[in-house]
């Protein structure tokens, strides 16, 4: 047994290629079986006629993609993009100062980082339900405002775009904070001192040194927030009511209630394509400067 094991290890030692495959193997098998294969199946479904009780029939059609460009669905797509961009912008505006503070917090750093990650300890579903209790007419926010006499009647907070945006920002904020923190944390403080001796005020130092050097973190954070919010459906479902559909809700409905798998697949691929185009465009524009933005 141990002899065979030793021989195997020795064999791996001699062959770097075999070693690489042995390390990559499990992950690749997993991704191929549970990611690539389903993706291929969905791509195929999106091009086939719809089955009567779900599923598909043999054949080829572009009908589902054509159908997606109906104004009704385009409105949903537009709303999804607007909310996702809005969510990303708000996350950036709220998250950057937090990341900046955490990166400079000295010995409190670990505690603050812990607090940033703390929400992950509870399921996203539970946290979103908790927001309902906060925002509904008789919820905490309205109760406090009424008691303080700031308002006379409860504000309609729940089932509004505001509630959805709030929920999205709350859910994705840590994904913005963490990468920005990581890039600010490794910033060499003597760079700012050097800038100061060259006449830069602290504000100028931030604008010309700190912010440009934290851009990789900002970009990573924006992607980590924008991409999943493009695909989110839970938040819109629970906090937006049935009124404010996002593209994720549409896809979910097509697979579940409407039993129109091919159309759901087609909608999924449109979203994927949109995100891919956004990412690739960004990388193309960014590429020449990538060398300097170490």
């Amino acid at each position, binding site marked *: 047994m141990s002899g065979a094991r030793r021989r195997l290890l020795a064999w791996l030692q001699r062959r770097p290629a075999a070693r690489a495959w042995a390390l990559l193997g499990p992950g690749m098998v997993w991704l191929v079986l549970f990611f690539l294969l389903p993706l291929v199946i969905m791509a195929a479904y999106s091009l086939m006629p719809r089955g009567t009780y779900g599923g598909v029939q043999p054949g080829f059609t572009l009908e589902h993609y054509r159908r997606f460009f109906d104004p009704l669905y385009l409105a949903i797509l537009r709303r999804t993009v607007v909310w996702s961009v809005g969510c990303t912008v708000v996350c950036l505006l709220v998250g950057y100062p937090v990341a900046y503070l955490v990166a400079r917090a000295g010995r409190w750093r670990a505690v603050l980082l812990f607090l940033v990650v703390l929400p992950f300890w509870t399921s996203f579903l539970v946290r979103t339900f908790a927001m309902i209790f906060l925002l509904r007419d008789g919820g905490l926010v309205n109760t406090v405002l009424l008691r303080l006499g700031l308002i006379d009647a409860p504000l309609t907070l729940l089932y509004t775009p505001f509630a959805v945006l709030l929920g999205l920002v709350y859910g994705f904020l840590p994904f913005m904070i963490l990468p920005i923190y990581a890039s600010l944390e490794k910033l060499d403080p003597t760079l700012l001192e*050097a800038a100061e001796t060259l*006449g830069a005020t602290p504000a100028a130092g931030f604008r*010309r040194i700190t912010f440009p*050097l934290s851009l990789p973190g900002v970009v990573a954070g924006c992607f980590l927030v924008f991409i999943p919010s493009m695909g989110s459906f839970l938040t819109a479902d629970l906090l937006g009511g049935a009124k404010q559909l996002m593209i994720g809700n549409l896809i979910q409905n097509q697979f579940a209630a409407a039993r129109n798998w091919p159309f759901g697949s087609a909608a999924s691929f449109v979203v994927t394509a949109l995100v891919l185009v956004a990412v690739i465009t960004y990388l193309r524009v960014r590429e020449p400067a990538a060398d300097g933005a170490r």
Partner: protein
Amino acid sequence: MAAPPPPSPPVVQLTQVSKSFGEVRAVDRVSLEIRRGEFFSILGPSGCGKTTTLRLLAGFEQPDAGEIRLLGRRVNDERAYQRGIGMVFQNYALFPHLSVERNVAFGLEQRRRPAAEIRVRVERALGMVRLDPATYRARMPAQLSGGQRQRVALARALVLEPEILLLDEPLGAIDLQLRKEMQLELKALNQQLGTTFVYVTHDQEEALTMSDRIAVMEQARVAQLGTPAEIYESPRTAFVARFIGASNFMTGVAARRSGGQWEVSRPGDGVFRVPDHAAIRQGGEVWIAVRPEWMDLWRPGDVPPAENSLGGVVREVIYRGETIHVLVGLTDGEDVTVALRNEGQLSKPLPWRRGDPVAVGWLPEDCQVLEDG
């Protein structure tokens, strides 16, 4: 070698400046005056407070007590960006996202100089540090060697034509050959531009090579301030004697004063004479340091009567190239090192072998009387 007496107020003036971090006194009642155009070094081991002193000058730290004046202006409450001082850092601190040209232009852009002027001045600054603008202008810092990076950092500071340039161990991360070259270049720049250089280093050789004057710091205080010759040839304390160059230390009791000299009797055996010094009291302990190269070896009994003489045995002969160190065990067990000029061991070998009885001789005026033990 010695700078002329100051005709104008000192460019840098520290008066009783102190700075603590928590319980630690980093700088303790330091007073310094640095003259216009001087190459002034602050020398000391790590943790002696030299870097904190420089950071106080730069404005990165505020003093707890005392006063800092630059060009006669009190700057205690001025931030670094208001002081108009140039600085070069040990780790270069080049902006990694900006090209060489943009790094050097940074301060000029901050002052909103016109683009044409910036271009000309950046080129001139790069030329000053011997970097060809055509080759290096567009490079990123990551594409430069350590020496080139430090040249860019120097150009970035000098392009603003500061009155005072602070240098925090700027050559510490550069290899020996290049370091020696850049030492001479820095010295030349200092003389050519008339800029006052304040140079922090832990390398005593570097400080001796470049400085007009040196402040040796020990435990947050200035242990001695003087020209390189004063520091090397007349160290005030054992710390300074030990830190700058090698020294033989000897002690004894002041026995008798005659003809401007004191006769000191060693605890074990033997007597030596030292020049008169304010620190010596009749019957008190005397500490001296003698540089190895100021001692000589003789056959026992051959030492000229004007010199001090102590007997011993050769314990080791160490070949060092330029010099040969002979380690002599004195009769009372102490060791001294005598450095002899190497006149060619193949043609004129030293007559001393291990185990030979010898006498160590040196002139009384070459004794450096120390103020402490």
